[in-house]
């Protein structure tokens, strides 16, 4: 069991409230995943200003980020995670981290995305990440009850392995070892033993090949065996898919102001305008995808 919540805002007036809304949602899925919690926020200009790239890293305590040699570096500590931002290209900032800090693990990068991972109580972690004050146009959170790999910050969701991409997973993939070997043969490098990371690498591989989120997730359904409810986000997208058996729960709510997805309704119960939202459960093996422009599926 794990808990997923995600919120894609359509109304810019809500952007300043994103973190507060997400924190309330996260609080309702704590029992589903008490081991650890991760968060992704898109467009939080406190930590990734306009024109900057952000790279989220897991680095040893007391790491000196000055060794990166990047000017105008903005460093935000949030427990096990540190968010680095600088007015350079995301690839250049990632390369600087990998070169200067080989023991650090990059857990997210892009021009819009900040990722936070940590182990322990989700409520405490939300405070550590200062989630309540986060702003932006899209975000998601995951509470983990570990099954396939150890309880570590690296094993915590979301898995962000491509620019401004995130994947969170409730369930377990059965054939992840096989697909991991195939992706490794194609020179993908893994950060953890986690089965969900394989899903994220698969999606990133498809997006890099030019597919859109909808197509990438339909291909994932063909290739992956096991149980999954997935929420996958990109620089402009928000998508949900469940396996053919669909025993891992999911509910979607939509209004003119936002699209939200959660493991259970109770996580949506306090969203503004929920009483008039269109509520439905995603059907098995059907991809539901939204972009900042509108619905594509």
């Amino acid at each position, binding site marked *: 069991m794990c808990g997923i919540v995600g919120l894609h805002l359509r109304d810019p007036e809500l952007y300043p409230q994103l973190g507060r809304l997400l924190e309330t949602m996260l609080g*309702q899925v704590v029992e589903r995943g008490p081991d650890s919690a991760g968060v992704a926020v898109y467009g939080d200009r406190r930590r990734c200003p306009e024109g900057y790239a952000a790279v989220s890293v897991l680095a040893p305590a007391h790491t000196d980020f000055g060794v990166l040699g990047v000017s105008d570096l903005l460093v935000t500590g949030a427990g096990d995670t540190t968010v680095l931002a600088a007015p350079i290209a995301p690839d250049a900032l990632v390369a600087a981290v990998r070169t200067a800090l080989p023991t650090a693990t990059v857990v997210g990068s892009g021009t819009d995305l900040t990722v936070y991972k940590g182990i322990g109580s989700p409520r405490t972690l939300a405070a550590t990440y200062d989630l309540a004050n986060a702003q932006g146009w899209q975000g998601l959170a995951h509470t983990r009850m570990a099954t396939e790999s150890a309880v570590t910050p690296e094993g915590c969701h979301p898995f962000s392995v491509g620019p401004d991409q995130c994947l969170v997973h409730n369930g377990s993939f059965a054939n992840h070892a096989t697909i991991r070997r195939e992706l490794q043969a194609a020179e993908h490098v893994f950060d953890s033993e986690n089965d969900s990371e394989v899903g994220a690498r698969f999606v990133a591989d498809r997006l890099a090949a030019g597919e859109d989120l909808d197509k990438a997730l339909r291909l994932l359904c063909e290739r992956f065996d096991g149980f999954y409810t997935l929420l996958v986000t990109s620089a402009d997208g928000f998508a949900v898919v469940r396996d053919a*058996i*669909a*025993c891992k*729960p999911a*509910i979607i709510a939509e209004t003119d102001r936002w699209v939200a997805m959660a493991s*259970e*309704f*109770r*996580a*949506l*119960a*306090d969203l503004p305008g929920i009483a008039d939202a269109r*509520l*439905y*459960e995603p*059907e*098995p093996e059907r991809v539901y995808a939204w972009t900042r422009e509108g619905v594509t599926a």
Partner: protein
Amino acid sequence: MSTDTTVLDLSTSSVRELNAELHRPAAKSYEVRHPQGAHAIAAGVDSDITVDVRGHVGYYAAGMNDGGTITVHGNAGTGVAENMMSGTVRVTGDASQSAGATAHGGLLVIEGSASMRCGISMKGVDVVVGADIGPMSAFMAQAGRLVVCGDAGADLGDSIYEARIYVRGAVASLGADCVEKEVRAEHRAELAELLAAAGLDHDPAGFRRYGSARRLYHFARGNTY
């Protein structure tokens, strides 16, 4: 025992407090406000009280009901009325997966749609769904009646033992050992009773009946490898 309705508000009290009251009721009628999708609301009711829940409920609402008349004015999460023994549970909106799972008796009415595995392993309950049901419904159903006024998803009645299934709309596919059967006068009569009990006025003539072909009851010699 009071004849007035007692109001219980889950924004100020816990589900445990609510259920403790419903298990030793001081009143005959209850109204539950602000359910906010909480789990196990009105689970374990074992007397003929009336409970009206105003809003959406989470998992296992009205589970194990034995004699209560429980209405959810909203949607229900996984396993509404699971293992019901007797009484009536009504959901005015939609129900999530496994509605009425393993229920032995009583009547479950879902005015909207029910998702996957509606009536899984049902053991005598009557389930009436106003709209559609999801895939794998009535899986391993053993007894009772399932009435669907809309469409049924894939693999309806897979591995069904007994139980009678009536569907007014389309069936995406039938599961293993589930077959269409003739609708005789006694079936139209019981269907009319079930629809009336649910407060629906569809013509029983518009439904088709499905049930067990009884080919999975025993191992067949021919099935050896």
